[in-house]
C-alpha cells in the first residue's frame, strides 16, 4: 500500500498528526498497537488533559484561556460538548481539563470516521523501517507499506530507532517515574473533597509509618473522575530507582505486576479503614503502566529548560508549551518549575524535524528536547499541538508543497476557519 504520510502511534500526538496530514490533502496511515486510539489516555488511564490552557495570571479570578489554536482547541471543545470532560479545574497554579478515557477514545474514532484520506490500523506494531518502506506486524502477519513522510508519535521513538535516527535518553536514575493508574468505583463524591483527601493523606502516611502499607503507597494520589461515583488512583512507582528501564520487557513486566499488587493492597486498606470507601472496588485496570519519559529523537533544534523558563520565542514557531516543567524524578510527588515571566514557550518546527532524516518528523513526548524540558512538553495538551504541527509539515512535504513554519501555520489557520 502507498501513502503520503505514515504516522506511528495513535496517542494524542499521533491522532492530531494523522488528522492534520489527511486534512491538508495527504493519504495518511495511522498505526496503533493497542485496540483504541488515545495512547496513554486509553491504555494507561490518564484522566486529565494538562497543558491546554495558559498559566493563570496572579489574579485568581482570571478565567482559563486556551493556549492553542487548531486541533487542540477543537478536540477539547468537542470533548466537553460530548460530555466527556469537565472543567477546567484549577489545581494550585495550573488549569486542567478532567476527562473520561472512554469518551476520549470514542471522540478519536468519530474524528477518524469524519476524515477523508485517513486510514487506521489498530493492533499493529512496527517491525522494520527503511527509506520509504515500513513493515507492519499484526499477530504474526506482515504488511509492507510505503510513505513519503513519517511522523514518530510513538512516545518511545520506536520508528526513529527502526529508521536509525539518533536518539537520546536521560540516565535511568533521573528518568521521570512511571505511573500505574486504576479506576475505583463506588466512591461517593464526599469521600474525595478537599477535607476528605487531606484526612486520607494523613491516614495513608500513618499506615505507612505503622507498616500497614508499603512505603510505595506514598506515591498514591486520588482524584474524583469526570464520572460521578468514580475515582482514579494514580500510583507513582519508583520503578527500581537506577534500574528503571521503560524500554526493557523485564522491567515493564515487573512494573505491571507490582502496580497491580500495590493497587490491591491500597484498595483493601481503603475499603477496611477509610470512611466512604467501604463499597469501593476496582472498576478498571490500565492496559499498561504509564511511561512518562524514555527516548527523545535528536532534532534540528533541542528545546532546553532555559527556553521554557524564559518563555522563548522562535521565528519558526509552530506550537507552544504552556505547562510548567513537572519533574517526577522520584515517586514522591512532582517538583514544579514555572516560567519566570509566566509566558508560554514557542516550540520551533526544527524540534519536530529529525536532525539527519529529512523524511522524519516527531511529535508528542519523543520530540527533540532536554530531559527537563520534556517534563513540560510531554503533556497531552502540548502533544495535541505538536502532533498537529508535525502532521501538517509532513503532509505538506509529502505533497511537494512548501512546508516551512509559515506554511504550517497558514495551513492550520485555513483548516480552523474551514471547520
Amino acid at each position: 500500500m502507498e501513502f503520503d504520510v505514515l504516522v506511528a502511534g495513535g496517542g494524542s500526538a499521533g491522532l492530531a498528526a494523522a488528522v492534520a496530514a489527511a486534512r491538508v490533502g495527504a493519504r495518511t496511515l495511522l498505526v496503533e498497537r493497542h485496540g483504541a486510539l488515545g495512547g496513554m489516555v486509553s491504555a494507561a488511564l490518564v484522566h486529565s488533559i494538562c497543558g491546554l490552557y495558559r498559566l493563570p495570571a496572579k489574579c485568581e479570578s482570571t478565567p482559563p484561556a486556551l493556549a492553542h489554536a487548531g486541533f487542540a482547541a477543537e478536540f477539547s471543545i468537542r470533548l466537553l460538548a460530548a460530555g466527556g470532560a469537565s472543567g477546567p479545574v484549577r489545581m494550585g497554579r495550573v488549569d486542567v481539563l478532567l476527562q473520561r478515557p472512554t469518551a476520549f477514545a470514542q471522540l478519536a474514532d468519530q474524528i477518524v470516521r469524519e476524515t477523508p484520506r485517513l486510514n487506521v490500523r489498530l493492533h499493529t506494531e512496527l517491525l522494520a523501517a527503511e527509506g520509504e518502506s515500513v513493515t507492519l506486524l499484526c499477530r504474526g502477519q506482515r504488511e509492507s507499506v510505503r510513505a513519503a513522510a513519517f511522523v514518530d508519535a510513538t512516545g518511545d521513538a520506536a520508528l526513529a530507532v527502526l529508521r536509525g535516527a539518533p536518539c537520546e535518553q536521560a540516565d535511568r536514575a533521573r528518568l521521570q517515574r512511571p505511573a500505574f493508574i486504576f479506576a475505583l468505583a463506588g466512591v461517593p463524591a464526599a469521600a474525595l473533597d478537599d477535607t476528605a483527601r487531606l484526612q486520607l493523606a494523613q491516614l495513608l502516611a500513618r499506615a505507612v509509618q505503622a507498616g500497614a502499607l508499603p512505603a510505595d503507597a506514598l506515591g498514591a494520589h486520588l482524584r474524583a473522575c469526570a464520572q460521578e461515583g468514580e475515582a482514579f488512583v494514580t500510583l507513582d512507582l519508583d520503578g527500581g530507582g537506577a534500574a528503571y528501564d521503560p524500554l526493557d520487557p523485564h522491567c515493564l513486566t515487573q512494573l505491571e505486576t507490582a502496580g497491580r499488587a500495590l493497587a490491591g493492597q491500597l484498595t483493601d486498606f481503603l475499603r477496611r479503614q477509610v470512611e466512604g470507601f467501604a463499597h469501593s472496588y476496582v472498576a478498571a485496570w490500565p492496559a499498561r503502566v504509564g511511561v512518562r519519559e524514555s527516548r527523545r529523537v535528536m532534532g534540528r533544534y533541542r528545546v532546553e529548560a532555559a527556553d521554557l523558563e524564559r518563555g522563548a520565542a522562535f521565528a519558526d514557531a509552530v506550537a507552544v508549551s504552556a505547562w510548567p516543567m513537572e519533574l517526577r524524578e522520584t515517586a514522591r510527588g512532582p517538583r514544579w518549575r514555572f516560567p519566570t515571566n509566566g509566558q508560554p514557550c514557542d516550540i520551533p518546527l526544527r524540534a519536530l524535524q529529525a536532525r539527519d532524516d529529512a523524511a522524519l518528523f516527531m511529535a508528542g513526548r519523543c520530540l527533540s528536547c532536554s530531559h527537563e524540558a520534556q517534563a513540560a512538553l510531554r503533556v497531552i495538551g502540548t502533544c495535541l499541538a505538536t502532533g498537529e504541527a508535525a502532521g501538517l509539515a509532513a503532509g505538506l512535504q509529502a505533497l511537494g508543497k512548501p512546508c516551512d513554519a509559515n506554511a504550517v501555520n497558514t495551513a492550520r489557520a485555513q483548516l480552523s476557519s474551514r471547520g
Partner: protein
Amino acid sequence: MAARPLPAPALLEAELVVLVRERLLETPPGFHAESNLYLAGLDSMSIMQLIILVEEEYGVSLPDGALTKDNISTVRQLAQVIRAHAASA
C-alpha cells in the same frame, strides 16, 4: 519520641522553609514562611511526605484531624501546628 527539643519559633520557621525547599517542593525564588504552599505545588501526595518529614525531624505526632487545608497553607501556619502538638505531647 522527641528527636530533639523544638527550636525557637523563628528558627523553626527558617528550618521548615529549608525543609520544604530542599526535600519537598521546587519552591519559587523568594519563597518564605508566609508564601502559599499550595501555589508552590503542595498536593495530597506531598502532604503525606510533609507529615512524615515533620514527624521524623521534630519527633512530634500530628494526630488525625490536626491538619486542615487552611491551617497548613504557609510554613508559618505549619510551625504553629507543630508547636501546638509538641506542647501537648
